[in-house]
């Protein structure tokens, strides 16, 4: 089987200790929670830190509670928990559904929400063994300087492949980060960058502590559409999160649409307030939103699937997100 490199596994009990370890070994350490993303990547030689700092035993990272008008979710909470927790299901049903669609039950049982938010970007030329990547010639995301997706490209376009961030972005979520030197908060919409090599603003010795989501208005309706080859296991070929605040007469108060699975950064579809804000939701408006999403999203050959089809699916699944939104009951107060 594929072998792991030698590393030291630290099991801190407290957050301060974990952050201290990350600072002490900055540049040669990585945090690990469920490890469902990191372990296969280490077996492929994509990460070879000498120190792993385990987060599951850190009490502060385990919490799901309502606090000051927000739902607070600790970074080390498992995806199974996020998908099934009664509070999350009641307040943020769209997030629970997005979490429920990740990978398969065994992965969700150990994979965490913090890990999903920080999931490494994916690409057919990157998620391969060392032998494979060496035989091809290393790419610019790891060990090399060329891009095989965009010939001559100098920026990594590996795909953001996580399912919860697009939903969290439409919900206006914030991540709380900490290093040994202090803490900061970043809105999720500002958390991701368009650099596939390291697609977040998180520093290497910085931890995502928790995700905070404002309790939405009862009029907010959400949908997460995940396109994938199989009904389980797979990463998204396309992830579409829609949040629309509408009243009983379908008057749109706000609308937010995020498309992930394209490049390194989930794309917030722009200009929707102009066409939809304050209007009554009609088939024409849905069609216009779908058209804008289609125009703003251009899939690349970073995943193993036909790009024309993936592009066309943007519009199809935006429509389906609206169908789901209109068919679903209002969230409980």
């Amino acid at each position, binding site marked *: 089987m594929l*072998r792991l490199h030698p590393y030291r596994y630290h099991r801190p009990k407290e957050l301060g200790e974990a952050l201290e370890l990350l600072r002490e070994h900055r540049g040669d350490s990585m945090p690990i929670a469920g490890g469902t993303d990191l372990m296969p990547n280490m077996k492929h030689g994509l990460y070879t830190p000498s120190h792993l700092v385990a987060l599951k035993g850190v009490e502060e990272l385990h919490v799901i509670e309502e606090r000051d008008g927000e739902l607070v979710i600790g970074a080390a909470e498992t995806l199974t928990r996020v998908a099934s927790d009664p509070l999350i299901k009641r307040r943020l049903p769209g997030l629970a559904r997005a979490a429920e669609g990740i990978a398969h039950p065994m992965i969700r049982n150990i994979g965490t929400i913090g890990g999903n938010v920080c999931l490494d970007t994916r690409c057919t030329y990157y998620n391969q*063994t060392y032998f494979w990547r060496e035989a091809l010639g290393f790419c610019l995301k790891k060990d090399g300087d060329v891009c095989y997706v965009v010939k001559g490209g100098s920026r990594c376009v590996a795909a953001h492949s996580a399912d919860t961030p697009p939903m969290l972005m439409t919900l206006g979520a914030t991540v709380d980060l900490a290093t040994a030197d202090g803490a900061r908060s970043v809105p999720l919409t500002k958390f991701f960058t368009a650099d596939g090599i390291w697609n977040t603003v998180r520093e290497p010795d910085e931890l995502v502590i928790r995700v905070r989501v404002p309790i939405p208005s009862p009029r907010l309706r959400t949908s997460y559409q995940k396109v994938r080859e199989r009904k389980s296991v797979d990463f998204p070929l396309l992830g579409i999160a829609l949040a629309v605040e509408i009243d009983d007469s379908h008057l749109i108060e706000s609308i937010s649409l995020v498309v992930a699975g394209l490049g390194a950064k989930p794309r917030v579809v722009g200009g929707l307030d102009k066409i939809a804000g304050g209007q009554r939701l009609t088939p024409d408006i849905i069609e216009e939103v779908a058209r804008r999403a*289609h125009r703003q999203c251009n899939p690349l050959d970073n995943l193993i699937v036909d790009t*024309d089809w993936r592009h*066309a699916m943007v519009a199809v699944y935006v429509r389906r997100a609206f169908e789901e939104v209109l068919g679903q009951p209002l969230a409980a107060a």
Partner: protein
Amino acid sequence: MKLEDFRGRQADSAASEEELREALEREFQVIGRRLRRTDGMSKSTGRTLYADDITLPGMLHAKILRSPHAHALIKSIDASAALELRGVHAVVTGADMPVPYGIIPWTRDEYPLCVDKVRYIGDGVAAVAAIDEDTANRALDSIEVEYEVLPHFLDPEEALERSDTPIHEPHKPGQNGNISKKVHLEFEDVEKGLADSDVVIEGEYYFEGTTHTPIEPHCAIGYFDPSGKLTVWSATQVPHYLHRELARVLELDVAKVRVIQPPVGGAFGGKSEPFDLEFCVAKLAMITARPVKILYTREEVFYAHRGRHPMLMHYKTGADRHGRIKAVDATTIIDGGAYSSFGLVTTYYSGQLITAPYQMESYRFDSTRVYTNKPCCGPKRGHGSVQPRFAIEVQLDKIAEALDIDPIELRRRNFIGTNTRTINELRITSNGFLQCLEEVERASAWKSKHRKLDYGRGVGVAGSCYISGTNYPIYPNDMPQSAVQLQVDRSGRVAVFAGASEIGQGSDSMLAYIVAEELGVPLDYIRILSADTDLTPVDLGAYSSRVTFMCGNACIDAARKIKKLVCEAVAEAWNCKAKSIMLAGGWAFKAEDTAQKMPISEAFNLAEAKFGALGATGSYNTPKDIHGTYRGGTIGSSPAFSFTAHVAEVDVDPETGFVEIHKIWIAHDCGRALNPLLVEGQMEGSVYMGAAEAIMEEHIFKETGLHNAPSLLDYKIPTSLDTPEMQSIIVESIDPEGPYGAKEAGEGPLHPSIPAIACAIYDAVGVRLDRLPFSPPRVWAAIRERGRQEEAGELSPWKSPPISVPLPATGD
């Protein structure tokens, strides 16, 4: 006597008298019952020991250095740095084993490690034995190989044209070294058949390559003892052929080589020939005098491959106005990958095996297997005939539509019959195909569905046949294809020594059922000792669906020899005729008076006292007069053919192209189901595998020749959620030569899946998918194309609703 009672029962507390009276009424006591597999409990509780579970004292671990180039000459190999690493015990290269091997004796074109040339990315170049895997991996990194890179060909049509750069040296000067095998056969006058046809359908079909994906990766352990005897444990499905090839390549006396096949965790044809790891562990064990193990990574399993050949198939099929087939004209280009493997047979099979279950007045096929710089293709479940079956069955669907004949009715009209010969002279005996068609027609409510379901939902039908073993062994000889040796203990325990390979298909269980049936001993009194060349008589291996038919017959032969002795001894003790004695339920008893009985162990003891130690051998060989009388006519010939029909019902999402297989009805003529539970398991497993190839699997490559996705995350096979509902219907035609009338069930049921699904998609949305797989992008593109044609007035709408075309891909 209930069979569950067999479990844990003592021989001397066996069936009650009432149960024995019931037994008299039945034709069989064990055969035909729904029984657990004999190895089911240990496998499902994780206690079965597979090859990788074997650890020997002092064992070393080896790794193979693989080529990063698709086609290159090896200029030099320098392993001196590797040998200096602490913990490295030996390095071998191609020069250490310069004897070519190959499963087919006429096409030996592989070396255990490449000698002067690499032919695909992943080809083995050197192997290192070290104290552990990490040390072996480090050693691989320090081996310097100098290559001279050659142009590489991934497309067989390009390779055909580029004879200036042969992947293999031509056999004779002037030949094209990129042609692996060419077969052209014609039966009756095809041109005339086409000219006389009322309808001629022409189509081009492409079957994408697929691989086996067994859960257990290949694994082998070599041990060379000081007396000069080599033992190799390997996850193989052909221990006998491996035995021969190890001795030949390593230049050892065959008598000093022992091959042991532990339980195998899935093979599906992917372990049916020798592989580099077996030679490497053997050679490294010989050099180091230590046991040596290699376990492939999943990536290496994809490189070892031997999966389904990609085939480009051009078919012309003619029929009269009643739908009767007048001519089939097939031209096929077969993408072989880097080596021959079973390719000679594949090339014949691509044409030989589609001449039943339908009668055809004339038939011609021209098949060319071409080398390309990709992992070598070989036999996968339904070897060589799954691809042409897709083409011919879809052709029939198109003919049925052109003639406005129901496709099931069209197949009925072309039924070839029983006890007949195909147009290429293959002998057909029992044939339950008509009943298979009727069963799926009825179970699926076909008549109320075909062309009658709403837009987006459809049904399709297809039929097929498959061999129950090949009539001739891979190396010519007149000895039996299968043999079994039985040994009886005084306790009543019966040991079955059989060369047959248990690869998950249930062959050990099958042998136990036969011994229990014949000798009347409880199942847990039977020990199956299989696939160990030091202990067991030869069986040619678990391939071509041959084991139940051939080893089953051999086992019956051996068991009946012992049964005869036991009945004679008991008859003598009771002073009655031997034919009055029955053996069942742990007893020997008198048929006329079931109160007169003795425990089976006592009966065995009587027989041993009278005749000496109780043991017997049995064997099976194929009849020799059933093949075609032309060159190549032996290939495809089988002692019995199985027959299958499928109806598939699918939902197609016209906006996305996703195909959801709602249900597949499978009727399979297996002759007789020795254990219906296992037959159904084989039918379902086959359908799963066929459906996977239909909608998902793509064994494809990047431009450089690198495998596109050598992992189980990216190489898509269906999860349980993607697997269709299935209904298996067993049809029993009772074959005259099979064991109790049985024929194969492990491969035949796969064949109709793919064309049935293709035809169901057509019925659903009116598009023909003549290229595999029917992945969402491909289905979506075909639906859009049809929509365009409908808008242009070239086609009328399919079923009622017009096709809505989603947003143009180019945006607005």
